[in-house]
């Protein structure tokens, strides 16, 4: 049985770069037979050696390439730099491959860098957006942001409260279905469409919510993109109801103070001129004129004191001198002053005073002013024929003294009662009954509660009368 051996060689075929595989089916008995066979075989061996050298070189290159590929696949590396380029075709391939790899690696690095930068920018932008939203949600002003389709992009709590909608449900819904205020919706649309004269429009707008009118200063701003197209409208509603009310009250106050100052001054001037012109014929009339001038001067002084004291108490600049004194004595002094005013108006004064024995620690001038103001109010707002009662009550066990000034006057509507101690406040229904500045009761409350740590009390029934008073600690 013939023994056959298989020889397999792989050899390079010159500069063409091709490879030849010699696979011979050789009978071993033929190897030692003829020179021709030997020389042919030698040629084959040389060829094979050359092929072997190329094969080893190629194998090294491929292995190196493979290793680098693996390293590249594992992550960026400098392996490519260690690859030795050869001057054969495979070397060119490797060089070309290396160049492509280098370019890809540069692009990858650039892309990674750009990605990182974008990620940072995104984080910053997200953080800034959250901050802006937090600010918008935390401010008292109502903020409503609508897009170019008039859909709600953002609304804060104040906006949902002011305009009466659910801010979560409002998201991405048409503003005219969210805000039940056709006038405001129309203004938003006008500003977005550029119908308003300016990109920014400020208007005063009245909103009725829960049966109450609120006045808002609405600022509508058209937000344009880089192409000049409207990107939407930012509407900011500032509730200026209270500011307008304060401005009105201050205006009323200036008018009232001006009137109140001019009235006693008018009497003083007129009576002095009458005296100068000799219009008072007899001594009795002249004395009467002197008394009027004196009384009106005191009235003027008291008014100025009221105005100044209230501002001093509020600013904490008033010097307070507390001494043990009898509330009854202070009440009697105030009654002496008010009795002539009561007599002129035909109002009866009744005294129900505790003995002067009981004392409280108080500033005499201020307590006197408080009692006088309450008495003066009671007389002013009690029609002719009515009664004003001044009562003091002592509770020895609780160590308290209470003062009550009760009148049979016009009374105060229940809705106005919580505001009677507010500065400048005047009961609308009673404005025609008597003149006033709206400062007297505010001053009394400051004197009793801020200065003396006492308690003010008031009850009233419209058409029947009022009871004002306070309680202080005994000493």
């Amino acid at each position: 049985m013939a023994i056959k051996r298989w020889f397999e060689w792989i050899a390079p075929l010159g500069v063409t770069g091709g490879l030849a595989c010699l696979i011979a089916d050789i009978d071993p008995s033929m190897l030692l037979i003829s020179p021709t066979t030997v020389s042919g075989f030698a040629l084959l061996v040389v060829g094979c050696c050359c092929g072997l050298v190329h094969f080893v070189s190629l194998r090294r290159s491929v292995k190196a390439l493979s290793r680098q590929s693996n390293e590249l696949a594992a992550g960026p590396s400098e392996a490519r730099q260690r690859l030795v380029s050869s001057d054969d075709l495979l070397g060119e391939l490797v060089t070309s491959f290396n160049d492509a790899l280098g370019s890809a690696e540069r692009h990858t690095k650039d892309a990674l860098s750009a990605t990182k930068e974008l990620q940072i920018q995104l984080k910053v932008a997200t953080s800034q957006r959250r901050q802006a939203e937090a600010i918008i949600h935390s401010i008292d002003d109502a903020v409503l942001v609508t897009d170019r389709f008039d859909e709600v992009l953002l609304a804060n709590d104040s906006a949902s409260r002011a305009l009466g909608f659910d801010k979560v449900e409002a998201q991405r819904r048409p503003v005219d279905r969210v805000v039940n205020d056709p006038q405001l919706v129309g203004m938003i649309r006008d500003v977005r469409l550029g119908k308003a004269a300016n990109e920014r429009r400020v208007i005063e707008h009245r909103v009725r919510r829960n049966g109450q009118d609120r006045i808002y200063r609405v600022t509508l701003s058209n937000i344009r993109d880089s192409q000049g197209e409207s990107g939407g409208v930012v509407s900011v509603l500032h509730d200026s109801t209270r500011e307008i009310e304060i401005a009105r009250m201050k205006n009323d106050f200036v008018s009232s103070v001006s009137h109140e100052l001019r009235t006693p001054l008018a009497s003083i001037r007129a009576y002095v001129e009458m005296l100068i012109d000799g219009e008072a014929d007899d001594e009795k009339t002249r004395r009467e004129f002197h008394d009027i001038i004196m009384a009106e001067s005191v009235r003027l002084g008291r008014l100025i004191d009221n105005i100044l004291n209230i501002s001093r108490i509020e600013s904490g600049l008033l010097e307070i001198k507390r001494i043990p004194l009898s509330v009854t004595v202070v009440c009697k002094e105030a009654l002496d002053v008010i009795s002539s005013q009561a007599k002129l108006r035909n109002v009866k004064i009744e005294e129900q005073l505790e003995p002067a024995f009981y004392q409280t620690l108080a500033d005499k001038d201020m307590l006197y002013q408080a009692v006088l103001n309450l008495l003066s109010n009671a007389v002013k707002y009690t029609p002719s024929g009515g009664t004003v009662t001044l009562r003091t009550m002592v509770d020895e066990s609780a160590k308290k003294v209470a003062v009550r000034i009760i009148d049979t006057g016009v009374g105060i509507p229940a809705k106005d009662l919580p505001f009677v101690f507010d500065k400048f406040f005047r009961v609308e229904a009673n404005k025609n009954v008597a003149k006033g500045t709206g400062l007297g009761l505010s001053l009394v409350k400051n004197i009793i509660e801020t200065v003396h740590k006492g308690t003010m009390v008031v009850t009233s029934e419209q058409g029947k009368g009022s009871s004002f008073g306070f309680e202080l600690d005994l000493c």
Partner: protein
Amino acid sequence: MSDTAQKTVLIADDESHILNVVSLKLKNAGFRVLCARDGNEALEMALAEKPDLLITDYHMPGLNGLEVASRLRQSETCRNIPAILLSARGYNLNEADVRESGIRMQISKPFSPRNLLGLVNEALGIAA
């Protein structure tokens, strides 16, 4: 002052001191003087007595001075009664409202009784 003897002036003011001093000044000048302490009383008195002149405060209980003057203008018999507004001017009166009420003369408090008398004479066409 014989030409003032028949002239009647109605004064309306809720400040009794002002009412008294104006009243005395005009009485001393020879006028017949009527006094009202609020707007409603002034209107009633004017309609009943048909004075030659009304001097009225603005801010009074009941009707204010402008309302009194306006009501008089609506009356057939009292529409030509001239009126002087004697006010403390603390309130921001609308000048159009003042004209509408028929009031053509104003004097503000504090005032000079002497000047007021001059104005009364002027309104009634009396030579000083």
